[in-house]
């Protein structure tokens, strides 16, 4: 009951503080999600991790210099050291044989180390109120106040405006940097601007998510959005929505359990969105791929049954003979359960009919069976004639291809091979209606 009351209180936003926290979390999640899409596509996702960690010394230095916890000053400090961190990463790569991953690791660990050194000096020297700085490690969305929200709103809107107005240029830089510089864009400047925007979006999230996990809000929404679309603008919008939603839900969880840090909960929510996306996204999700695979397997199974019955009918020249399940199983060493399932499907499709528990092909089934066998033998002939494969190498490949060849390819094969009558094993290739031919 208490949970319900709290939920109502949170989402009705009757409480002013709750309102600030919700808007704040939504804004920063949306900004990070949207801008993170660019970093994700440039394969610079982990740069965000270094940027976030490199903010910590800035937070501490700003506090040491001013002695107060003014968010604007603290975030300026964070922006300053994060930005130095990015510059250093690029400098290390350009002036040594070290690669991006190592440079990121170096800057991350050294800057974070400096941050902790300063933080523990602050904690040892000062009064209790200063210990609030450690909230920047794992985040505390509840700490977002009215003034903070105004700041977040201004910065968030500015980020969004710049991103939208430069969207076409950013798009070219991300997808084709060579073309961008060839067409006269100032790529270095634009790349610098894009990096700066990403750094800022990381910085404004620090309060709620914390330096340690902030990077997740950059790349995870983008990775989730990537599962649903191939279109950049849609991907950015989706990533923003995912980021905003995780921000709000994270804030909600932290509202229910205020003594826990918010960052980890936000990460759990956004990772959950990612897992759901990668599993369930249409066409490319894991589950729909599995379904596609299963459908192909079933089709192959059905076509094997048709082909086996067709060959038997042709051999006996008797199309009204019925077969029991075990007789059919002997044709092709079918697994019984798969065979029964295939026959059920074929009966439903009108390709087979059952007479007193025994089965035979219908007329449609006969011409389908003929088609599969025809494709098999056409392909064998093609392989033998054009690739000059020896006779004993043909069958297995044709076993696969008979299920794949489309009517268009079939027509071209027939034309290319000049209406062949016999396959390389000297067996007849059945056309339109096998019944008459054989």
């Amino acid at each position, binding site marked *: 009951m208490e949970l319900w009351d709290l939920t109502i209180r949170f989402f009705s936003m009757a409480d002013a503080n709750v309102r600030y926290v919700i808007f704040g979390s939504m804004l920063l999640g949306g900004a990070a999600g949207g801008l993170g899409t660019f970093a*994700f596509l440039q*394969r*610079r*996702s*982990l740069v*965000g*991790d270094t940027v976030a960690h490199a903010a910590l010394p800035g937070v501490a230095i700003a506090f040491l210099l001013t002695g107060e916890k003014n968010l604007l000053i603290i975030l300026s400090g964070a922006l300053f050291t994060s930005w130095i961190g990015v510059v250093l990463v690029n400098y*290390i790569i350009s*002036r*040594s*044989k*070290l*690669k991006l*991953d*190592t440079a*990121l*690791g*170096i800057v*991350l*660990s*050294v800057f*974070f*180390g*400096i*941050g*902790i*050194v300063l933080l*523990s*000096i602050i904690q*040892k020297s000062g009064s209790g109120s200063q210990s609030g700085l*450690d909230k920047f*490690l*794992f985040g505390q969305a509840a700490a977002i106040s009215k003034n903070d929200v105004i700041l977040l709103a201004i910065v968030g809107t500015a980020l969004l405006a710049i991103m939208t107005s430069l969207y076409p240029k950013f798009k070219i830089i991300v997808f084709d940097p060579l073309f961008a510089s060839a067409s006269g864009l100032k790529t270095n400047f634009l790349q610098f601007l894009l990096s700066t925007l990403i750094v800022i979006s990381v910085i404004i999230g620090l309060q709620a998510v914390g330096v*340690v*996990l902030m*990077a*997740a809000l950059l*790349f*995870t929404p*983008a*990775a989730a959005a*990537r*599962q649903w679309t191939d279109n950049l603008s849609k991907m950015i919008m989706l990533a923003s929505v995912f980021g905003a939603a995780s921000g709000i839900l994270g804030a909600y969880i932290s509202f229910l359990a205020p*003594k*826990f*840090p918010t*960052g*980890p*909960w936000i*990460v*759990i929510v956004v*990772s959950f969105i*990612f897992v759901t996306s*990668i599993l369930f996204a249409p066409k*490319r999700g*894991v589950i729909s791929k599995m379904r596609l695979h299963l459908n192909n397997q079933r089709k192959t199974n059905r076509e094997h049954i048709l082909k086996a019955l067709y060959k038997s009918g042709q051999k006996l020249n008797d199309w009204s003979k019925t077969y029991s399940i075990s007789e059919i199983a002997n044709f092709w060493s079918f697994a019984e359960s798969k065979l029964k399932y295939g026959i059920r499907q074929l009966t439903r499709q009108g390709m087979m009919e059952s007479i007193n528990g025994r089965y035979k092909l219908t007329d449609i089934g006969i011409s389908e069976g003929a088609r599969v066998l025809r494709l098999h033998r056409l392909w064998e002939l093609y392989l033998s004639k054009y690739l000059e494969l020896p006779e004993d190498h043909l069958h297995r490949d044709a076993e696969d291809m008979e299920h794949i060849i489309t009517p268009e390819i079939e027509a071209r094969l027939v034309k290319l091979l000049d209406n062949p009558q016999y396959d390389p094993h000297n067996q007849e290739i059945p056309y339109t209606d096998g019944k008459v031919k054989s």
Partner: protein
Amino acid sequence: MTPDMTVIITGILVAVSCGLIGLFLILRQNAMLGDAISHSILPGLVLAFLITGSRNVLPMFIGAGVVGVLTAFITETISKTERVYKDAALGIVFTTLFAIGVILVSIFTGEIDLDQECVLYGEITYVHWDRLIMFGLDIGPRAPVILAAILIIDILFIFLFFKQLKITSFDPQFADSLMISSKKWHYILMIFVSMTVVASFESVGAILVIAMLILPGATSFLLTTKLLPMLLLSALFGTLSALGGYYCASLLDTSISSSIAVFGGIIFFIIFLIKSVVRTN
């Protein structure tokens, strides 16, 4: 042994064992995997605590080994879908696992011997009083004893499989053509990285582990192209970081782990600048 000595020795052991094993991550251009594993083993560690109710060494190592390999494996699986690049996949896996770990820590604070800050920068100051008791015998301070054992195991591993590690790190395609599976050795290396990380993690926290996995190796990478000298230099830079960091921390009265990390960074940047100046002249 005085408490201060114990701290210094612990620091050196962490720095050398991480420095040696971390070098291979750098050679494989996979340095951030060290960062990732240092984060993602946290839930494994917490669960091992919660399940066994004690800080037994064996479950801890098994938990860490499993999570370490799992991190590499899930990353591989996600990036195989071809819609998430490897770096993002790695980021997603380790932030998720670390978030789970931090939540577990915050829920079970009091029941386990960890808190949120300790996860990050450890409690190396108190290592002397945390004793390892086996068969009712006080063997010595827990952290350095375990770390010494891990260091010996790491050195043996590198010594025995020097050829395989070298060839799969420098030229994975060539290794594959010689039937030395670079993939298999990648996962084996992950097991050793995880074990080394977990042994260091409890006493010194994530930050020093990450720093020592990367900094000594990166510094020595600047100076030589031969593997054996690189390993020796890495161990040397690790040791210097531990000594210098400890000294600075006692001067400034601040976190020892973080100072060691920062000192490792100072050594790196000094060598880096000297190299740049020498090259431009």
